[in-house]
């Protein structure tokens, strides 16, 4: 059974706004370590954190986060 991998574009959105990890962390009320580990895929954020990140970037959660290769994780194998 493979572990589901969560991908994100947080670094891209941060770069567009010239925000550091610390700046983004301050804006949504978490530590920089949390942002850092989310970006590298070590930590899966809670729903609240994911929504807050998307809100800060003024976009949807699906634009920021995605599941790597969705076809491998279908509940109904073809």
């Amino acid at each position, binding site marked *: 059974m493979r572990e589901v991998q969560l991908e994100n574009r947080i*670094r891209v959105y*941060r*770069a567009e*706004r*010239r*925000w*550091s*990890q*610390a700046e983004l*962390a*301050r804006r*949504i*009320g*978490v*530590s*920089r*370590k*949390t942002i*850092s*580990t*989310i970006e*590298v895929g*070590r*930590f899966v*954020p*809670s729903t*609240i*954190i994911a929504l*807050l990140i998307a809100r800060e970037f003024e976009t949807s959660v699906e634009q920021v986060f995605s599941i790597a290769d969705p076809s491998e994780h279908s509940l109904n194998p073809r």
Partner: protein
Amino acid sequence: MLNAAEICDRHRTAVAAGFLALGLGFTTGALGHLIEGSQVLQWLERGLAGLAVLLIVGAMVWKSVKSVGRGASYIGGTGFVGEAVTKAHVASWASTFILISVFKVFVADRADLPHEFYFDVILAVMLLVHGFVFFTLTRSVQTEQDDHA
């Protein structure tokens, strides 16, 4: 300037370090039952207990002082360090449960060592496992540099 979440993360880290020191203290206490009359072990146990109190109480005081007048919101325990604490708690609980079960089955009838020895061992394992798991999970994060985009 630290935000509220950073303060809480540092508080959790200091408390985890205090637990680790306390675990080492109980370890020396258990060794003291095996090596009777060792002044070194007694002083080491007291020193570690004092260090643990300093870290845990100091962390509480520091957090209270740093939190005065702060209006910024903070999202409970849903961050990376909060999750590391939870995983450490789980590992600690599981190892303690296993150890107590082993003691119950294999050493319950033994009288060659005082009860305090077994309490020290249980507490030592509980706290050492907690500290080991927590600092293993958070250790590699320390060197990551922030990129000022």
